[in-house]
């Protein structure tokens, strides 16, 4: 079955420290992978995506993610966390279905709390 797992419900980090939010996936074929962020009472905002090419993908707000095919992982990282990074983060994988159309399957989300 095609799925996305975010093993941590919450990640706590001190401001200025590096952060990692974990994501693993299970999908047939070459994966298209995404990270979205959700602030309170807001919709999801796109952070970055991996389709092909360099395994290290850079995105918005200083975030980056590393694609690891052998470990089927796509962890989100940032070298120095800010209090304003505190939000809910979702990993997603694109799956294709009959007719050539695509849809996203989302993980359950990880709440990031950055403490001053």
């Amino acid at each position, binding site marked *: 079955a095609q799925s*996305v797992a975010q093993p941590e419900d919450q990640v706590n980090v001190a401001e200025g420290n590096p952060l990692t939010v974990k994501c693993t996936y299970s999908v047939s074929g070459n994966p*298209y992978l*995404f990270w*979205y962020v959700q602030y309170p*009472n*807001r*919709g*999801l*905002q*796109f952070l970055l*995506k991996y*389709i092909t090419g360099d395994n290290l993908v850079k995105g918005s707000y200083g975030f980056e993610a590393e694609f690891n095919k052998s470990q089927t992982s796509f962890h989100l990282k940032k070298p120095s966390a800010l209090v304003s990074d505190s939000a809910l983060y*979702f990993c*997603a994988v*694109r799956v294709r*279905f009959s*007719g050539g*159309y*695509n*849809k*996203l399957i*989302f*993980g*359950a*989300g990880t709440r990031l709390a950055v403490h001053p």
Partner: protein
Amino acid sequence: EAGVAQSPRYKIIEKRQSVAFWCNPISGHATLYWYQQILGQGPKLLIQFQNNGVVDDSQLPKDRFSAERLKGVDSTLKIQPAKLEDSAVYLCASSLDGIEQYFGPGTRLTVT
């Protein structure tokens, strides 16, 4: 560029009542999605439109949920009758290339 617009932002109804949500996608985006996000979970796709045609509604509870996208632009999602378990945030998203999706602010539905 204007983003995806949704209304209302909040709605409280009693069970067995009906409710409708509206979405206006980004101009020119052919693909439109409705998601249900239950508290503590990731968004789950309910229905996907390509222009005004449905390409995936496998997760839509068709006995009570319906959606339409007349003229391939705006879309409405309706629930009739609502159940307690329908309490969630309903997100609309649109896409130009079928890969990157842009989300609206969502409608928070509370069924009492």
